[in-house]
C-alpha cells in the first residue's frame, strides 16, 4: 500500500492549484490587469499565516521575535493595503447606471467606498 506522505499531498495541492490559477486568471481581461496584480498582491499577503504560525512557537529568541513582527507587519500591509487599493480601483471600473453618457456620480462612489472600508476594518 502506498502511503501519501505530507510531501506528496502538498505537491499534489501545489500542482493542482497551479492549474486552477492558470485557468481562472486566463479569463481576466487586459483591462483589469492592474486590479488583478494588486488583488493577487493582497492574496500573497497570506504569508502572514507563516509569521503567525511561527510566532506560536515557544523558545523564540528576541531577535527571531523581532523578525517575525516585521514579517507579520509586511504581510498585513499586503493584505489590508492590497484589498483596499483593489477595491478602490474596481469601484472605478463599475459600469455606471444609465449607460455611457452619465457624468460623475460623486455621491454614489463615495457611499460604495465607505461600505468597502467598513468591511476591511472588520476582517
Amino acid at each position, binding site marked *: 500500500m502506498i502511503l501519501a506522505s505530507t510531501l506528496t499531498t502538498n505537491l499534489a495541492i*501545489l500542482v493542482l492549484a497551479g492549474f486552477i490559477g492558470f485557468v481562472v486568471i486566463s479569463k481576466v481581461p487586459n483591462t483589469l490587469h492592474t486590479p488583478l496584480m494588486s488583488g493577487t498582491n493582497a492574496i500573497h*499577503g497570506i504569508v502572514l499565516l507563516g509569521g503567525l504560525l*511561527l510566532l506560536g512557537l515557544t523558545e523564540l529568541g528576541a531577535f527571531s521575535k523581532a523578525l517575525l513582527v516585521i514579517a*507579520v507587519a509586511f504581510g*498585513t500591509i499586503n493584505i489590508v493595503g492590497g484589498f483596499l487599493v483593489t477595491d478602490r480601483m474596481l469601484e472605478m471600473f463599475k459600469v455606471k447606471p444609465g449607460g455611457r453618457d452619465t457624468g460623475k456620480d460623486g455621491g454614489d462612489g463615495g457611499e460604495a467606498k465607505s461600505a468597502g472600508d467598513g468591511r476591511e476594518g472588520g476582517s
Partner: protein
Amino acid sequence: MTGLAPATVFLQSESFIYVLYIVAVALFIQGLRGLAGPTTAVRGNRIAAVGMGIAVIATLLNSSEGNWGLIALGIALGVAVGVPAARQVKMTAMPQMVALFNGVGGGAVALISWVEFRHYGSTYGSHAIHSVIDHPASCVARNRFEEECSSALIPTSVHIGGVPTYVAIFSVFAAIVGSVSFWGSNIAFGKLQEIIPGRPISFGSAQQIVNFVLLILALAAGIDLVAGAHSELLFIGMLLVAALLGNAVVLPIGGADMPVVISMLNAFTGLSAAATGVALNNPALIVAGMIVGASGSILTNLMATAMNRSIPAIVAGGFGGGGAVAGAEGAGEHAGTVRSTTAADAAIQLAYANRVMIVPGYGMAVAQAQHAVRELTKELEKRQVEVSYAIHPVAGRMPGHMNVLLAEADVPYDQLKEMDEANPEFQRTDVALVIGANDVTNPAAKNTPSSPIYGMPILEVADSHSVIVIKRSMNPGFAGIENELYFDPKTAMLFGDAKSAVSEITAELAQL
C-alpha cells in the same frame, strides 16, 4: 489539553482548521473568478478578502501558545502603514504601489524563512543534533501530522530527528526567491518613483556574468545549508547574495520594460509563498501562492509577447545599443518632414470627424492628463463624434495601467478597446489622437525588418484617415527608435505637455 472544554478542543483541532483553510482557498478562487468582468469584480475582490479573514482566524485558532501582544503589534503596524497608503495613492502612481506591496510580500517570505532557519536550522542535513520529540510545540505549530511527529515511523528519506530534507529545501528556496523579489521590487519602485534613474544601469556586457555568478553563489549557499551547514552567517550571506541578485536583475531594466519586470516579480513572490507553504505544511499558503504565481507568469508572458521580446532577453537587459544605432539612422533619413499643428486646427479636425480613436500612452500618465482627456471626449460626444480608446497591452508601466487611469476619469468601460479589437477599427477611424504613446504605434514594427522592434504587435494607427500626435518633443521614445508615424504625410504633430495640449483642444472645441 485535558482541562479544555470540548468546544475549544474542536476549534483547535487540525481537521477543523484544515476545513477553514479549504473554505478560504475556495473563496480566493471564487473571488478571482469575479475579476473576469467589471460588473462582478468588486464583489470578487471582497469575497477574496473574506477568504483571507477566514484564513487568518483559522491560523490564530491554531497558535495556542500566545505571543498575542507581538501578533497584535505586527498587525497594527501593517494596518497603520497599509491603510493610509492604499487610500491616498494616486492612480498614476499605481505601478509604484504595486511594486512596493510586492516587495513587502517578498520580504515577509524571506524573514519567515530566516526565522525557520534559526529555529529548525540546527536539524537541517544529516548531522541533526536536536530531536523533534523534544519539541512537541513544533509539531503543533507546524500543523504536522503524526507521521513526522513520531520519529519511529519516519521514512528513510527523512533524516532521523530533524525536519525532513524537503522542508529545508523549500524553506531555503523561499528565502532566496523572497529576497530577490524584495530587493528587485524595491528597485522597481525606486525607478518608477524616480528616486533611481529610470534608464538602464548595468555593467554592460559583464552583466549576465555577474547575474550568473550571483545566482550560483546563492544556490551554492542554499545547498550547503540544506546539506547541514549549521551556520546562520551563511544563511545571512545567502540572503545578501540574493539581495544583490535582485538589484542586479532589475537595475539594468529600463522604464518601458517595467510591465514585464513587475509581472515577473509578482510571479516570484507567489512562488516563494507557495514554497513557504510546503515548508510549513500549510495548504492555504500553497494554493494562494500558486495562484499568485500563475497570475504573475501569465502576465509576464502576455507582456513579453506584446513587446515581441523573450523574457530572458529582457532580464539580460539590452535594448539600448541596437536601438540607438537604428534611431540615429532613422533621424538622418527623415529629418525635416514633420508637420506640426495647433490646438485650434486639431479641434476643427476632431469636431468634423465621425469616429475618433484615442491612443493613450505613458505620456498621458506622466502628465496626469486622464481627466482632461475625458473632458475632451465629452465635448466631442456632444457633437455626435463617436469616441473610443485603443489600448496597447504594454502602454504605461504595468499591465492595465492605462485602463485604470481612464476608469478613474470615468471613461465608460465599453469605450476601452484592447489591441485586437481596436486594430480593425482604425481603417474606419477619421482621426486617431495619440497622447503620449510612441513605440506601440510605430509602423516600423511591421514594415522595417531591421528595426529593433520589428515583429512587435502595434496599434495600427497609421491605418486611420488622419493622425494627431500629442508629444512633448521629437525625442525618440524609450527604445531610442525614431517613429515613422511622425513622418507620415497624414500625421500632424501637436507639441506640448499632454494635459495642457488636450485642455487647449477642449477649449477651442467649446468655442467652435
